[in-house]
């Protein structure tokens, strides 16, 4: 729990709250100011918009602890505000509200528009309203209401002498002294619920058949020096293969040759640890096989399925081996459910390429570049930085070469 003190609608308040408490929840649950509504909790719909230090801000993606010493005003605090009073009348006259759920956030934003843009036209009003969603009115009444207030104030020569906030930095910040010491005492891990039992496998039952159909695919071909028979033997060591997967950690190989382990990846602020299992199905005579793995990240509720088909062909008259690999993977759960899947695909492609690169090094007798087989803690997560330098660096180099006329 964290002790916080701030000003809410002109009153000083102090409370003990968990650090993760959204400002909106603090206002609603702790201060019983339920006029601030929650509509999305990712900063888009605007229903939770309140004023912090006199300027509108999202109370769902602002944490109460970050507002130490700040001045917060909610819709309830606008009862006696003259601009809000004009807006209330105009909203009523222009039918600028129906169900009322977006209305508190609209009032805060509308008031800000009236203050900052005394000359706003309809286009400006609509642009400035873009961060507040209304599903009922089609915005027609809201825009007309704000326009009515702005025009009336212009006619009356009314102005509240608005000047932009002069302090630099995010609203809500800069009011309080440091408090670092307290936080460092205890890593938060201790309060996180953890599974009490170690899990054996993510996908029970008939392994390959039970997995989701992988959706994304990349292919790569490697030439390894050494005869096919020798490379084929190396492909028998599933643990060694697994170690080529960045972030993979093998904890156990069962009697059936199935591998149990975890794969940790880090994608910006997102860290995931995929607990899972992998199997290696070999078609001996044909020198081909399939690695099949499934994993689940308990934290984000994401599941991944990956298949690596490999086929070995003799090359260079038997002195070398061509290894054709094709990596397919599928994601389900939280990390899969975004429209910007291209970013995740780009990341996964880089992982797959890294795997291929490591495989090449392993088969050539070198150590994989990343993917410490015994990596167990957060510090050894696969960091995309190291991971992508090879891939992306090449791209950048190409651009700059072309740029400098050396391409």
């Amino acid at each position, binding site marked *: 729990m964290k002790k916080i003190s701030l000003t809410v609608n002109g009153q000083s308040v102090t409370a003990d709250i968990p*650090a*993760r408490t959204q400002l909106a929840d603090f206002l609603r649950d702790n201060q019983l100011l339920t006029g601030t509504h929650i509509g999305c*909790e*990712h*900063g888009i719909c*605007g229903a939770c918009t309140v004023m*912090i230090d006199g*300027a*509108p*801000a*999202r109370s769902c*993606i*602002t*944490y109460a*602890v*970050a507002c130490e010493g700040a001045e917060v005003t909610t819709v309830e605090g606008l009862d006696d505000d003259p601009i809000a009073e004009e807006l209330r009348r105009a909203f009523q006259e222009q039918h600028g509200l129906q169900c009322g759920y977006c209305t508190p956030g609209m009032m805060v934003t509308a008031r800000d528009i009236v203050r900052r843009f005394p000359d706003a036209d309809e286009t400006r009003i609509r642009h*400035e309203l*873009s*961060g*507040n969603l209304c599903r009922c009115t089609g915005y027609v009444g809201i825009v007309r209401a704000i326009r009515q207030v702005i025009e009336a104030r212009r006619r009356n020569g009314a102005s509240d002498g608005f000047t*932009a*906030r002069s*302090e*630099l*930095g*995010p*609203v809500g*910040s*800069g009011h*309080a002294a*440091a408090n*670092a010491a307290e*936080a*460092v005492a*205890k*890593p*938060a*891990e201790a309060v*996180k619920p953890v599974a009490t039992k170690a899990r054996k496998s993510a996908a029970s039952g008939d392994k390959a058949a039970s997995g989701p159909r992988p959706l994304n695919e990349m292919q790569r071909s490697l030439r390894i020096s050494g005869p096919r028979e020798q490379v084929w033997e190396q492909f028998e060591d599933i643990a060694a293969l697994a170690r080529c997967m960045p972030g993979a950690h093998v904890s156990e190989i069962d009697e059936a040759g199935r591998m149990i382990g975890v794969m940790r990846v880090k994608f*910006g*602020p*997102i860290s995931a640890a995929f607990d899972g299992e992998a199997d290696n199905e070999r078609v001996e005579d044909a020198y081909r096989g399939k690695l099949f793995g499934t994993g689940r990240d308990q*934290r*984000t509720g994401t599941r991944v399925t990956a298949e690596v088909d490999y086929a070995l062909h003799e090359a260079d008259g038997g002195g070398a081996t061509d290894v054709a690999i094709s990596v397919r993977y599928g994601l389900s759960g939280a990390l899969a459910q975004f429209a*910007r899947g*291209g970013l995740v695909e*780009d*990341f996964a492609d880089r992982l797959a390429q890294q795997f291929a690169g490591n495989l090449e090094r392993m088969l050539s007798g070198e150590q994989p570049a990343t993917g410490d087989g015994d990596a167990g*803690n*957060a510090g050894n997560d696969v960091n*995309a*930085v190291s991971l992508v*330098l090879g891939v*992306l660096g090449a*791209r950048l180099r190409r*651009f700059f070469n*072309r*740029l*400098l*006329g050396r391409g």
Partner: protein
Amino acid sequence: MKPAPFEYARAGSIKEASELLARDDITARILAGGQSLGPMLNLRLAQPDLLVDITGIPDLVAAERDGDSLYLGACVSHANVEDGRIPDVTNGALAEVARGIAYRAVRNRGTIGGSLAHCDPAADWPCVLPALGARAVVQGANDKREVAVEELMQAPFEPGLEPGEILAGLRIPAMSPDARWGYYKYCRKTGEFAEAIAAVAWDPARGFARIVIGALDTLPIVLGDNERLFGDTPERKPFDTYRPEEADRMLTDAGVRDPLKRQVHMVALRRALEFASA
């Protein structure tokens, strides 16, 4: 959704923050404005043990003219830039770009350094700052370094910061009075993630020209001082020898295999160039 539990620390100095961030027994994330991190925390996609709030560090909310450049502390907010609370050294470019970032309520808390360090390819600053030739000032517990912003960004969502390092600020070169810039961001809806971003800057007096193509699935493409793209003499209108086929090839190289997507990026680029040339 509500975030998984985390601890919160408000750092009083860069050194203090740096020490917290350097710890290897916990996962710590910097909280600058939190306008990108907040949603990820609430969705439980990001589950750090500790948030280190750096917005109270005085050095990080500075804005001052420093010779031929402007120094901006990392925690200057988008709204600060939009409202002209910082000296204008870019012929209005920074303020104009700031005005188009997300929504005002987000701009009041979101910060320029936070946005850059988030390295979202579809965000504004990661595209604009390279176009302006900005440099990132990176500070650790003991040492300080400067690096071009495009080199700071190493992959989507991955800034090249060592453990304990913080993006402390930005050094933005002052444009000459007759320098030109252009910015074109295409979003399906105001304030949402961009489908295409192009930023261009041309400053003949300084011999500086840049093109940035952003909103890809990878980091923005940054191009500079290339005769084949930009024309070779200061007397010419900027970019009038621009060769679209080169840009198209670069997009293909950057992994944009879909021709319609390339088309949209190319249109954005052409319009940014037209804006700068107008």
